[in-house]
């Protein structure tokens, strides 16, 4: 009781909870779940863009894209490390991902049929992610907040690169402009879904707000994203595919239509165009790599002269 009050006072005072501090079990569990899902999203998120690395149409774009996908792997690593400060185990979390027991952001369950998708993912998907994540830089749990600061910095960089690619393509051939518009048409609604269901259909928000894990509601963040994106779309010269989209001078915000929430729930529940493919890809990579991780662990044990060592040491060792 006393511990719990002290914990809440710390949080209310906008101070950080650190790994050695006492915390409510539900707070810990909520955080592990949230950070793990975020980590999984970074890792699964490597695939839709990774689809274009070998086919990128200029060496400069190839290098930018490869570096970006590499950053996503890096983000996954920081975030898994943050869950480990809460007592979670990366191997266990990975198992949950590849067994379909833990989720990742549904946005990555859509395919990337053109190179313009790479730009639009940078612009809209990373843009939406930043809206979601900037407040997390002040989240109550210290290691998570610090990871988010670094991640947000890199995501902004990726977003600018995505936007710059689209700008370049819009200045190119008519075919390229059509390609960009087509990609915007396909990604706009899924991007709006990234903020989660409307507030009245959202659970958990209240407790997460009290714990300062979350600071804005889904609808607030979605509004912010739309307001930020509309002028960027104009500058780019693309049309956002929402006939209800218009400036509301009274509210000082844009009005906009609602995504297809039935589709949202279907994709969240696993029934999206790429869910099975994304998880199968990750599972295959994880299982194909098992013998390598085992070898690294065995080698580390031999070197340590410690036949009872665990896989953990080996993993660190393996991370050359």
């Amino acid at each position, binding site marked *: 009781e006393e511990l719990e009050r002290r914990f809440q006072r710390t949080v209310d005072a906008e101070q950080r909870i650190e790994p050695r501090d006492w915390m409510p079990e539900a707070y810990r569990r909520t955080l592990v779940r949230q950070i793990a899902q975020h980590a999984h999203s970074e*890792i699964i998120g*490597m*695939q839709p863009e*990774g689809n274009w*690395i*070998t*086919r*990128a*149409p*200029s*060496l*400069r*774009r*190839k*290098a930018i894209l*490869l*570096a970006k*996908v*590499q950053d996503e*792997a*890096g983000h*996954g*690593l920081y975030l*898994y490390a943050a869950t480990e400060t809460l007592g979670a185990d990366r191997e266990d979390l990975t198992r949950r991902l590849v067994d379909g027991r833990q989720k990742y952001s549904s946005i990555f369950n859509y395919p990337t049929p053109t*190179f313009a998708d790479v730009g639009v993912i940078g612009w809209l998907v990373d843009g939406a992610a930043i809206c979601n994540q900037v407040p997390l830089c002040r989240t109550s749990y210290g290691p998570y907040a610090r990871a988010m600061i670094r991640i947000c910095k890199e995501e902004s960089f990726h977003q600018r690169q995505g936007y710059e*690619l689209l700008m*370049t*393509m819009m*200045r*190119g*051939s008519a*075919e*390229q402009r059509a390609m960009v518009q087509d990609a915007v048409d396909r990604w706009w609604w899924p991007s709006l879904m990234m903020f989660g269901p409307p507030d009245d259909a959202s659970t958990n928000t209240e407790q997460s707000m009290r714990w300062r894990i979350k600071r804005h509601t889904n609808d607030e963040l979605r509004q912010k994203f739309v307001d930020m994106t509309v002028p960027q779309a104009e500058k780019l010269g693309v049309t956002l595919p929402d006939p209800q989209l218009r400036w509301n001078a009274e509210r000082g915000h844009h009005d906009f239509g609602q995504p297809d929430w039935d589709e949202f729930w279907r994709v969240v529940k696993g029934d999206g165009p790429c869910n099975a493919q994304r998880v199968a*890809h990750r599972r295959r*990579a994880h299982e*194909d*790599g*098992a*013998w*390598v*991780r*085992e*070898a*690294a*662990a*065995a*080698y580390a044990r*031999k070197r340590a002269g410690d036949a009872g060592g665990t896989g953990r040491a080996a*993993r660190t*060792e*393996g*991370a*050359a």
Partner: protein
Amino acid sequence: RAELAAYCVMLGDDALVFAQRLSEWCSNAPELEEDVALANIALDLLGQARMLLTRAGEVDPTVRPAAAPEHVPDEDALAYFRDERAFRNVRMVEQEPGDFAETVARLLVFGCWRLALFERLAGSRDPVLSAIAAKGVKELAYHRDHAAQWALRLGDGTEFSRERMRAGLDRVWPFVAELFTPHPVETRLAEAGVAVDPAELRSTVDDVLDRVLVAAGLPRPETPALPAAAGLAGRHGVHTEPMGYLLAEMQHIARSHPAAVW
């Protein structure tokens, strides 16, 4: 100058094609740390390729393929608008990646070889080549060490990993001899103090490889060298069959939209 450009293309193609193969690992590596590491190595090589191909275009504008649209920079003109027969990379780098052990074996051999080459090339009379090589030496030392560490872990890990590592080396070995076979352009430019004669690298590379293999408890492979086709191999633009598929994937979008700007 045509020969200097041709030489830049050879070294650039080695890096470009190997970077392409290594980037196929991205999201497929045995652990996330390795996704990061292999992407890093691919990025280093891609960077070397871009500098070398750009340099080739500067030195001799006629290396630009006729098929390349005017607005495309030299590096992309060379990477995306040449046909298979115009690529000058050694055949080792175009092979399908195989399993992780095979990739480690290839990276180890290639890293040792290119490091030895760049160490000498840093003394080239051509100031640009010399600068590119000096920068590359640091990168390549990391590539070699990374691969060597994995060769140790796999060679001295489990029975299974040892067998895979041994098999991976066997599959890479047929392509080793070609690394040390000079093309006439290399020989002539080496005499002029501009290039490195790859034949001179053999003992340096062998020493390093032998030390790694001994430390990892791995036998030196005995698979025979892959011959040239009637004297023609990678440096003459005669490649193995995986090359065509690699280029199809790499070039398809760029070739499909010649008027595009990316």
